[in-house]
């Protein structure tokens, strides 16, 4: 059995920094003795005392009271009787008490009618808080008020959200975005105004807000793409800068966006892959002719042109791991060349996120590329690698990722074949991981690795967990099915296992799998006779007919008695006799079984009444088949006996079956009027029905890909649960004709926008400042910046309005050249060194969204560099990232950057002076400049 070992070693840090061992950080753990809060949970509460605390004027007494209530909530008790005492405390100044009061309010506000009524009393206080100068207080008030699920106040909530969507603080705007779905859930008829707010927030330029805005979009109006167009490019550019949770949301929304706005980048491949997956699963289904067919499809899949090219590439093999991915359409370049630049933009900007520490982000990126990518080799390898990397993670994450991989591997095994060994099962893997890994392993089976996989499966057979062993046996069956070359090995392995296994459930599975393989024609002819013989032997051995038992026992002398077969195995064996034991059976190597078929029926008929239903049905089946095939022989009385027995069986299904079969035999049990002519014609058709060639069953390799099954998006909860959940949005199919790409250009808005921007229109860079700063103004005032400017609400309103306008204006300026210059500058950048260093540093910052906003005065002459220089003085720049800054970042690396740095000299001295030794923040380039 496999063993896994873990050892750790500490190596020296290969960097310029000093390496010291880490100091212990868990010092707080030691001394929580003083005033632990556990007594709130453990002691019984005295309601009177709690009321006293709540009504006390001291904050810490109130806090004590609230803790009692929280503790009650924790214990699952109803604390709503204190509602009136708590509501009074919403006006409290202290933040700790306030927060606890808020938590309580949200929990109980719609608990019952009186609570709802009392909750209305708190509204005034929230409205006051919404106008507070402290952004945290504003945000908190909005969050709580919008969480109170009382229908009477919807209009007030809506107003508050509208107001906060224009707030100067991005944090408050983010909370406004989060509040939108709350209101929508309570009252879906407010959809329209809510959509408008979503649209407005999508125009925001702060990374902080965008994630929540897109989340609101996904929940409120997931199909209203026309408000997404303008945000699309910005989202792509800022993707790396928004927080990890927002990345997941944005990626999943944009995946669907791509599907509606662009055409399939690799249509042929996708269909071919799908077809191939289906064929693989049906492999071996029709023995020889099937194999040919399968090959043909594989061919179609390897060649770009698809179709038509079947014959010539007849011999093509599945790819080796070395040429992995070459399977996909030829070359990235050609395919990428056809891509819409906007489509490519998202694909490119999402790729670096594969390095995220958050597995959700990684999976979202993979899903995006899987469904909307070009299937190029390099991307394929990167995706596979990243998925395998996040596999080494907490077990829950492993579960989801493995599930996703299992699905992907069915359609595109090439992605994961290089990482085969990572799917070997470890001793420490939990049960669900083991079965999923088995699924992956079987899906990854190709000519080159089938031996390795079989060897691995062989090890698993001796595992202690019976269910796992049975899964393994099934996996062996699937491998044999998909790879006819190794079928012989698989079947002989199974036969060997059959002879030595003492665990009935395992034997059972082996029999069923073997039966299935024989049925699919996957069992090689050389092995067929002996396999059939063995199965019949097993069947007879386990039948209680004493005479035969004795006979067989002589054969099997010295052996330990095997446990009797389980019903499903027994039924499988009888079915085989019925199928291969009839004289008309054309499969070679069945002579022996034909000889004993009659005897088998005789034995089974004897024990008929004691068998479980599953077996009875097969006995009936066998009796009818033999009866039809050998009319008038010694079989007929046996057949009639079985028909009679089943007709009086307790089970209604079996009785019905018996009636059908009786008719089919041209017999009747009815008295009186019987249409004898019809019976006779039935009898004539009987052999066609019972003995004709039957379609073999399909073995599925996975959940998707096979026609008729739901194709749920990888990484969704629905795909984990195998059914569609509420709110699941399936991926749209690609449009046949490219929708107008101009919708993402913002020329239209430009004309209107410029007017609103006012003085800033002159210089494109300053525009981006404005957009970055519009929101910043208000925020800075609260913060460290000495600038005294009390960002009143009306102020900030207009600010952020012009903000978005200028942003879009800006965007349109750059758009035309954006794509090309983007890549160009990237390249030239890495090429040059010294001369480019300044701009390099700048670019870096842009990449990181570190657009540190500066104060107002700089606005006019302002360049990005100036802002950066000013950054260390007040490093409270906020997350906004001028819509343009990313777009212009790349061009900025070229000529544009010279200008800003001219302006920087004058601004640098104060900046460095203020920051002292912290100048390091600016990175190498700027550091040099300051000296």
């Amino acid at each position, binding site marked *: 059995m496999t063993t896994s070992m873990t050892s750790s070693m500490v190596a020296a840090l290969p960097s310029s920094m000093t390496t010291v061992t880490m100091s212990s950080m868990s010092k707080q753990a030691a001394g929580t003795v003083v005033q632990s809060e556990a007594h709130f949970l453990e002691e019984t509460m005295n309601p009177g005392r709690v009321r006293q605390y709540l009504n006390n004027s001291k904050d810490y007494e109130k806090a004590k009271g609230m803790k009692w209530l929280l503790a009650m909530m924790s214990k699952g008790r109803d604390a709503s009787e204190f509602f009136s005492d708590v509501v009074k405390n919403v006006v409290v100044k202290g933040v700790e008490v306030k927060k606890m009061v808020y938590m309580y309010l949200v929990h109980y506000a719609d608990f019952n009618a009186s609570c709802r009524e009392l909750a209305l009393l708190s509204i005034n206080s929230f409205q006051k808080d919404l106008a507070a100068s402290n952004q945290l207080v504003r945000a908190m008030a909005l969050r709580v008020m919008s969480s109170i699920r009382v229908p009477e106040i919807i209009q007030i909530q809506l107003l508050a959200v509208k107001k906060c969507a224009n707030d100067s603080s991005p944090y408050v705007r983010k909370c406004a975005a*989060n509040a939108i779905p709350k209101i929508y859930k309570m009252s879906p008829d407010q959809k329209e105004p809510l959509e408008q707010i979503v649209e407005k927030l999508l125009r925001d330029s702060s990374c902080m807000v965008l994630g929540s805005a897109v*989340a609101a979009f996904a*929940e409120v109006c997931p199909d209203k793409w026309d408000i997404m167009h303008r945000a699309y490019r910005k989202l792509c550019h800022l993707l790396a800068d928004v927080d990890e949770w927002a990345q997941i949301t944005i990626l999943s929304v944009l995946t669907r966006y791509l599907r509606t706005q662009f055409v399939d980048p690799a249509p042929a491949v996708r269909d071919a892959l799908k077809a191939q997956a289906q064929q693989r699963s049906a492999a071996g289904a029709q023995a020889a002719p099937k194999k040919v067919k399968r090959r043909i499809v594989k061919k179609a899949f390897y060649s770009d042109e698809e179709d038509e090219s079947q014959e010539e590439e007849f011999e093509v093999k599945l790819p080796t791991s070395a040429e992995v991915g070459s399977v996909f359409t030829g070359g990235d370049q050609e395919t990428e060349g056809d891509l819409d630049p906007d489509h490519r933009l998202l694909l490119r900007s999402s790729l670096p996120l594969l390095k995220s520490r958050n597995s959700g982000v990684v999976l979202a990126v993979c899903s995006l590329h899987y469904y909307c990518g070009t299937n190029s080799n390099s991307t394929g390898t990167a995706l596979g690698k990243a998925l395998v990397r996040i596999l080494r993670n907490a077990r829950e994450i492993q579960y989801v990722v493995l599930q996703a991989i299992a699905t992907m591997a069915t359609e595109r095994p090439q992605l994961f074949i290089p990482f085969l*060994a990572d799917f070997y099962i470890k001793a420490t893997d939990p049960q669900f991981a083991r079965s999923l890994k088995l699924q992956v392993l079987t899906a990854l089976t190709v000519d080159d690795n089938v031996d390795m996989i079989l060897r691995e499966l062989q090890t698993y057979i001796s595992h202690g967990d019976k269910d796992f062993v049975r899964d393994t046996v099934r996996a062996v069956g699937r491998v044999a099915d998909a790879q006819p070359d190794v079928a012989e090995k698989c079947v002989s392995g199974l036969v060997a296992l059959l002879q030595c296994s003492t665990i009935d459930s395992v034997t059972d599975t082996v029999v069923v799998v073997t039966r299935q393989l024989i049925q699919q024609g996957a069992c090689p002819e050389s092995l067929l006779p002996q396999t059939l013989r063995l199965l019949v032997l097993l069947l007879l051995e386990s039948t209680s007919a004493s005479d035969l038992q004795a006979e067989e026992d002589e054969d099997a002398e010295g052996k330990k008695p095997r446990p009797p077969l389980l019903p499903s195995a027994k039924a499988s064996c009888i079915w085989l006799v019925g199928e291969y034991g009839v004289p008309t059976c054309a499969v070679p190597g069945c002579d022996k079984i034909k000889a004993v078929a009659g005897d088998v029926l005789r034995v089974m008929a004897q024990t008929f009444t004691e068998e479980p239903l599953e077996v009875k049905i097969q006995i009936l089946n066998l009796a009818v088949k033999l009866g039809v095939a050998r009319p008038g022989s010694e079989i007929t009385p046996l057949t009639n006996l079985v028909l009679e027995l089943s007709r009086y069986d307790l089970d209604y299904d079996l009785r019905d079956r018996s009636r059908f079969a009786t008719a089919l035999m041209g017999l009747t049990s009815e008295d009186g009027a019987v249409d004898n002519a019809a019976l006779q014609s039935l009898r004539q058709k009987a052999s066609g029905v019972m003995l004709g060639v039957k379609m073999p069953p399909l073995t599925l390799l996975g959940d998707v890909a096979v026609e008729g099954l739901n194709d749920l998006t990888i990484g969704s909860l629905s795909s984990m649960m195998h059914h569609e959940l509420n709110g699941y949005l399936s991926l749209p199919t690609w449009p046949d004709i490219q929708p107008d790409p101009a919708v993402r250009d913002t020329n239209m808005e430009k004309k209107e926008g410029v007017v609103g921007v006012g003085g800033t229109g002159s210089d494109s860079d300053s525009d981006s400042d404005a957009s970055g700063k519009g929101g910043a103004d208000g925020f800075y005032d609260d913060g460290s910046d000495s600038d005294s400017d009390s960002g009143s609400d009306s102020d900030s309103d207009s600010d952020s309005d012009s903000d978005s306008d200028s942003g879009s204006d800006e965007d349109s300026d750059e758009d035309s050249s954006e794509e090309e210059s983007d890549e160009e500058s990237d390249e030239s950048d890495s090429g040059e060194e010294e001369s480019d260093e300044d701009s390099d540093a700048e670019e870096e910052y842009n990449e990181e969204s570190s657009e540190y906003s500066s104060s107002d005065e700089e606005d006019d002459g302002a360049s990005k560099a100036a802002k950066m220089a000013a950054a260390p003085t007040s490093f409270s720049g906020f997350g906004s990232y001028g819509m343009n800054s990313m777009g212009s970042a790349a061009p900025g690396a070229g000529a544009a950057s010279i200008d800003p740095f001219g302006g920087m000299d004058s601004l640098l001295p104060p900046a460095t002076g203020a920051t002292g030794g912290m100048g390091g923040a600016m990175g190498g380039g700027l550091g040099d400049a300051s000296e």
Partner: protein
Amino acid sequence: PEGLSQVEFRSGQTMIQSIFMMSRTGEVLIEKHWRGITPRSVCDVFWDEANRYAAKEDAPPIIYTSKYYLISVFRDDVFLIASVTAEVPPLLVIEFLHRIIDIYTEYFGSVEEQNIKDNFSTCYQLLEEMMDNGYPLTTEPNALKAMIKPPSVMGRVHSYATGKSGISDDLAEGMVSSMPWRKAGVKYAQNEIYMDIIEEVDAIVDRNGQMVSSEVTGMVQANSRLSGIPDLTMTFIDPDVIDDCSFHPCVRYNRFERDRVVSFVPPDGAFELMRYRVNTKANVSAPIYCQSQVMFNDSQNTGYGRISITVGQKPTSSLIMPSKGTMAIEEVALTIPFPKAVRTTNLTVNVGTCLYDEATKVAKWTIG
């Protein structure tokens, strides 16, 4: 086929409705709701399901009840259960639940039941800040710590004496900055950053002692105590060793793609800078070997068998450095699972100690 009206009312994914925290014994420690109340009875459903498995951690992480989907995480002896009612990215939920435990661990030292109870109001405060309407809000430890001070002895004495709480009444400055992971205004008299590199070898060895597969993964854990906004660069002597890696959000991904240099502005305090997989051309051999021999002779039907296990050190050199002396091997422990049919064992070792757990039939040999 959807009608037009249907499309109109189509609403997309939702988020976490409620979160429950459950101790190993099934006691609910924390419950918090964001999108309406989830009845506590779902916890019973979950608990029944978890109890169906021999080891509670074997229970599948996603369970479907009649109305709710329960996504759970089991770590450090507590369960965190999130209930959702509609489509949601499952990994987002799982990662978030893990993040909660990370944060609690950072605040309270561990998520032991007692620690949670001792600080339950802080737990609620943290949850409140970490999530809004079921959607993650503030999850960076630096930002959270600026808003809610971690409990400490001094803090408690102080708050007891003055009635002041550890809850800040203003938004942390760093939070709305472009670097939400770093708090502003950090000052140290002595500027230093500590780094630990921890590498793990995972290997599968077959019964003959042959290495079937092995992989080496590593992580860089840092503890930053630097003032201001330090911008750091870490270079590698041989970046090719890194096959694939993931970074803390503070690292500039593009810079790494381009120059293979880790460039970042660190958060304050302890954090995990990066994880990586080592590019092992050949299988890395484990530093120890382990050989087992199982003898089971049942001709007399005695039911006795014998196993003997030998563990020894293999001379291995580190991947990064050429062998300068042998590596010291410490804390070797061996887990030996016995089949369920085993009634009792009699184990003797010549080094270390060996403990056999009757219930799980697992022996643990600690060599030291």
